[in-house]
C-alpha cells in the first residue's frame, strides 16, 4: 500500500470517527429530543459513511477485487435513517415530549 493511499485512508477513518463522535456529543448535549434527533441522522450517517468508504478502498486494494457490501450498507442506512427519525418524532409528539423554551411552533397532534 502506498503512502498516499494510507494518508487517504487515515483521513477517511479519522473523519468518520470524528463525525460519529460529534453525533454522539450532539445526542448527549443538545437540549431536547427534537434537536437531539438531528445528530444521529446526519453526523453519524456521514461518519459511518466515511469509515465505510475507507473499508471499501482498503479491501479493494488489499484483496484486489471489488466487493461493495459497504455500498449496500450505506444504501440501507440512507434509506432508513429518515424513516427512523420520522417514526421517532411521531412517537415523541404522541407522548408529548417537551421542547426547549427556544423552540418556536409545536408538533402536531397525533
Amino acid at each position: 500500500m502506498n503512502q498516499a493511499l494510507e494518508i487517504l485512508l487515515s483521513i477517511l477513518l479519522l473523519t468518520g470517527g470524528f463525525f460519529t463522535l460529534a453525533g454522539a456529543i450532539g445526542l448527549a448535549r443538545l437540549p431536547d429530543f427534537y434537536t437531539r434527533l438531528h445528530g444521529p441522522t446526519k453526523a453519524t450517517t456521514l461518519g459511518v459513511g466515511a469509515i465505510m468508504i475507507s473499508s471499501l478502498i482498503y479491501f479493494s486494494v488489499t484483496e484486489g477485487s471489488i466487493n461493495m457490501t459497504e455500498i449496500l450498507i450505506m444504501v440501507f442506512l440512507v434509506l432508513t435513517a429518515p424513516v427512523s427519525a420520522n417514526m421517532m418524532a411521531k412517537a415523541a409528539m404522541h407522548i408529548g415530549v417537551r421542547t426547549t423554551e427556544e423552540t418556536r411552533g409545536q408538533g402536531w397532534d397525533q
Partner: protein
Amino acid sequence: MITTALYITIGMVMLAVLLNTYRLLRGPDAPDRVLALDTLYINAIALIILLGITLGTRLYLEAALLIAVMGFVGTVAMAKYLKRGSVIE
C-alpha cells in the same frame, strides 16, 4: 500510520458509544432512549467495519449489513409501539 488512525478512530467511535449509552440511560423520555439505541446500532456498524479493517478480513462486513437491516426494523417497531401500542395490527 493507518494503524494509528485506526486506533484513534476506534477510540472515537467507542467514545461515541459511551456517550450514546449515557443518553440511553439518562433518557429522560422513551423516544430519547430509542434514539440512543438506534444510534448505537449505527455505531455498532462502524465498529464492526473497523474491526474488519483491523483484522484485515471482510468476513465481518455482512454482520454490519445485518445490523443496518435489523436495527432499522427494531427502531421502527419500538417507535410504533410508543405511538400506537400494537406493532403489528
